[in-house]
């Protein structure tokens, strides 16, 4: 009995030491897409300032918005901007607004598996929308073959593959299709999951890529990072300037730079189908959702200090993890907006 009490006391004492070392702990929750980046940032920042410990739960963008609105976390994170109704709900509940801060950029790429075709395919917006609407059903449809003159495409049926789970990736993909096809906009629309006209669903990037790899003559979409890390073949997409651009970190950042000129003050902007010759058209920001008022001044200072660091030194870590960094113009605007957090 004495021994057990002794051990218990030792454990408690040890825990006390560990806790005492971290007087300030921040919690965040939300998007899964930037999770590898965020966890790297939070651990690097903890090394820099051992007094601050940031815990992040990657529960999904929807969950991030819900939790920040409920006030159960210090900040949220989302791959899609909050809607006007969601902002209003937040304002009504708390009496002050919640702000969006872009952190990094991601792209979504079309990937495919066509027996006998090894070259890189070029996709027009019309072809992608037609395939996902179920109107283009064969690989040798003129909408697909005309930009791919050097490639012989078979007459097989296209098997369309999409995400089955709600995800920011689907939001970006459907946001793009809504911009380039009015029929898509009216019939399907954009969201983290939609009522797909055709196709099979795979769970997560790994589910989609698994189905594409296994199913002959299929097409799907995955995050750029995922395609790069798994060396999957993916096609280039024609942007609004009429140039076929293959997604990479530079072309994604370039899409954001084009949008930076007329960036709204609240940063809630979609950069799909962005202008600019080098812009990759299926790109998006991902955001931190930070309350504009903190009752606890020490938490407020910690959050502000972290965001400031993330926008400066933090951006140097992005490319090692295959995330595209923010353009300078956006960083400058965000630093300005950070002052309004009280």
């Amino acid at each position, binding site marked *: 009995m004495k021994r057990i009490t002794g051990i218990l006391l030792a454990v408690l004492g040890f825990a006390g030491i560990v806790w005492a070392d971290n007087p300030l702990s921040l919690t965040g929750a939300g998007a899964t897409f930037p999770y590898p980046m965020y966890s790297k940032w939070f651990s690097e920042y903890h090394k820099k300032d051992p007094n601050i410990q940031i815990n992040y739960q990657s529960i999904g*963008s929807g969950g991030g918005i819900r939790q920040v609105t409920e006030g159960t976390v210090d900040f949220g994170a989302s791959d899609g901007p909050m809607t006007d109704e969601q902002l209003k709900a937040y304002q009504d509940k708390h009496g002050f607004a919640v702000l969006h801060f872009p952190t990094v950029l991601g792209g979504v790429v079309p990937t495919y598996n066509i027996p006998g075709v090894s070259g890189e395919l070029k996709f027009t917006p019309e072809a992608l929308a037609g395939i996902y609407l179920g109107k283009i059903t064969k690989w040798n449809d003129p909408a697909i073959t005309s930009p791919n003159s050097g490639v012989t495409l078979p007459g097989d049926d296209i*098997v369309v593959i999409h995400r*089955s789970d*709600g995800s920011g990736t689907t939001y970006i993909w459907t946001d793009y299709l809504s911009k380039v096809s009015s029929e898509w906009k009216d019939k399907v629309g954009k*969201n*983290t999951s939609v009522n797909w006209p055709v196709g099979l*669903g795979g769970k997560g990037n790994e589910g989609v890529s698994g189905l594409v790899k*296994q199913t002959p003559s299929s097409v799907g979409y995955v995050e750029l990072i995922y395609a790069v890390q798994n060396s999957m073949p993916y096609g280039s997409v024609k942007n609004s300037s009429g140039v076929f651009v293959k997604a990479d970190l530079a072309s994604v950042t370039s899409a954001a730079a084009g949008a930076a000129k007329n960036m709204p003050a609240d940063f809630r902007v979609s950069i799909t189908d962005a202008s600019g010759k080098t812009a990759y058209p299926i790109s998006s920001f991902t955001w931190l959702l930070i309350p504009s008022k903190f009752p606890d001044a020490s938490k407020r200072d910690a959050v502000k200090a972290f965001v400031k660091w993330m926008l400066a030194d933090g951006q140097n870590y992005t490319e090692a993890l295959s995330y595209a960094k923010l353009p300078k113009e956006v960083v400058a605007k965000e630093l300005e907006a950070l002052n309004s957090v009280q």
Partner: protein
Amino acid sequence: MSAASTIVPSAGPVAGSRSFLSRLREGDEIARLITFLFAASVVLITVLLVYQLWVSSVLPRHKFGLAFFVTRVWDPVFDNFGALPFIYGTVVTSFVALFLAVPLGIGASIFLAELAPARVSDTLEFFIDLLAAVPSVIYGVLGIFIVVPLMRRFIAPVLKNTLGFLPFFKGPVYGIGFLTAGVVLAIMVVPYIISVSREVLLSVPRDQREAALALGSTRWESTWKVVVPFARTGILGSIFLALARALGETMAVSMVIGNAPTISASLFSPGDSIASVIANQFTEATGDLYTQSLIELGLVLFLLTFILNGLARILIATTSQRGSGMGNA
């Protein structure tokens, strides 16, 4: 320990004649109360669960009403939700699973309980229990990498060539779909059927078999005509345990069903199930109506399980009128 415990408390019927206070002191009443609370907690948890699902799905119940059960659309963008494709997928995949797993499971349990030497039976039982404990995501991976390619290359073409005139085996084959999900579910639930049925068959009294043999029946006749009917209630119980597991299975189904809310007679077609769509979409669901519709799907699954369990009870009650005394199943 106190001195009171040296008096041995007398058994049930006598205990009733003593005063409440003495029963309290001797611990009978306390034990009764505690075990009663444990038993009541099961009911309480069920009631709380239904209550919570009910109050958290107010919006879609008011907006869609009973149409929720027959609407075929699931559209998070235009806020139109219906449960029919998911109910259909859940029932079809579970039915396919039982269709395959029941003969296999009962056959195997008869062999293990009646025909196999005890050592073989016990060794195999160890492996079967091991199978029952495998996490479902492992079965999902097994499904994706083994069942799906097998289905696309061999099973589906053979079925199309032989039974292709049936509506169940028409249409394009993707490898994933209702049939694949049903097969994976069958693999998952077979261990339950074997394990429970074997225990039930083993607990059939020895004199039943001896009597049958003494009357001149063969080994197989005594097994099939005497032992199995005697254990019928318990075997049915194992099947309904398997059904409950199949209805609620999430991960493995989600990985091989195709996740497209379609209603098609073809078993090759991709579909979706209730548990799978909740797991897929809940984390990223935005907007109250969408989230609450997913919760109402949970309520529908509860209702479905309740109805099927009720039917099971009725089936057991009507079929076990004669002969079956297996209360200990």
